[in-house]
């Protein structure tokens, strides 16, 4: 998975919602409120960076969190199965 580049599925939008104090994922007639870690991972997805680069970026951003590769890969796999993201 490390060399793959994740991007949001077309028509899906990620944004911060002040009223919910959370990141959300918006899609046709639906909305998922994201927890802090899911929000941080999706925020790092820009359609350019590979999974390995996203892991490195998040480990640099949260130095006290320890190794994050497993958690990030699990989340991305889950998000891909839900068809939120495309991994190529």
């Amino acid at each position, binding site marked *: 998975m490390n060399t793959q580049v994740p991007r949001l*599925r*077309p*028509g*899906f*939008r990620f*944004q911060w*919602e*002040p*009223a*919910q104090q959370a990141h*959300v994922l*918006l*899609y*046709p*007639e*639906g*909305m998922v409120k994201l927890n802090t870690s899911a929000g941080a991972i999706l925020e790092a997805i820009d359609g350019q960076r590979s999974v390995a680069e996203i892991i490195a970026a998040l480990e640099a951003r949260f130095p006290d969190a320890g190794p994050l590769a497993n958690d990030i890969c699990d989340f991305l796999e889950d998000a891909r199965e839900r*068809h939120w993201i495309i991994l190529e």
Partner: protein
Amino acid sequence: MSATGSSLNNPRPGPPLWLLAELTYRCPLQCPYCSNPLDFAETRDELDTESWFRVLREAREMGAAQLGFSGGEPLVRPDLPELIAEARRLGYYTNLITSGIGLTEAKVAQFREAGLDHIQVSFQASDPELNDAVAGSKKAFRNKLAMARAVHEAGYPMVLNFVIHRHNIHQMDDIIRLCEELGADFVELATCQYYGWAFENREGLMPSADQLATAETKVNAHRERLAAAGSAMKLIFVTPDYYEERPKACMNGWGSLFLTVAPDGTALPCHSARILPIEFPSVRDQSVSSIWYDSPGFNRYRGDAWMPEPCRSCDEKDKDFGGCRCQAYLLTGDADNADPVCGKSPHHDRVLAARRAADHATAPLAELTYRNARNSRVFAKA
């Protein structure tokens, strides 16, 4: 402070997260299950562009994130591109819920430019003859097909919506194949719910239990096939309330997430609530915030202090909130009652009687009361 009274039962609700903007009741189609009010033809005074801008802004400030432009047919509003652009600027995820009639490739592109996120196209059947007979329009199907293709090619995510009833429920295989061919992301196979015109036409629309079971089996088989093929197309099959033994958590609770603003500015907790004998506020007179938090109409069924038995002592009341107020009103004449869909309701026999009638119904499509201005004026007089 007092620990009794309504404050415990009615904590301040969260903001409306979903705004349904019913821009107009005008529509070129005549579907006999339309959810618009029977007397829609009496509504002539639609909100103007500036008023809609204010509604969009106020609801967005409160936290609304999903916005549906609906109707009637929203495409008949000439200011639709401006409304889309303003909504997108405010940060909404914008959905256009359309019959596709009146849509052109130029408009599909223009709306994309304005920032529209998604177009949902509704179909009435998988073939032109039945589709156009249900829609009461001779060219509807051809137009819808062309527009569904244009929507997909323009790069929108696409939801295709089919309202399912006894006259098209046998088409499940064809419908799903058509959706695959058109490249749908989501397919709503929404079995008719009986409000508005659909309630008037219930006997002629409601599928039998056998029809429903056959359709559900087919949908499940297609789901397995699509999953095995790694397809992202999602099938959403909405079973009719009348075949349930427990009611749905209607609108996720009254005044909890959803806010509908009707064409004339009436604010409603759901699009069918204006049938209820409740005075609902208008965005012409009040801010969206005071409507949502303070109006008697929106507070009427929040919490559970209003519930009579069997809901009051039911251990599922926090899960389904007593079901649907409109269904209770339509079937029992009192919106406070438990939704008669519930097996515990003393009025559940009315739902069972409708099921029995569906097993023996024979009325052809042509005998249904079609949704048009002429029929609407008859209801308005009555």
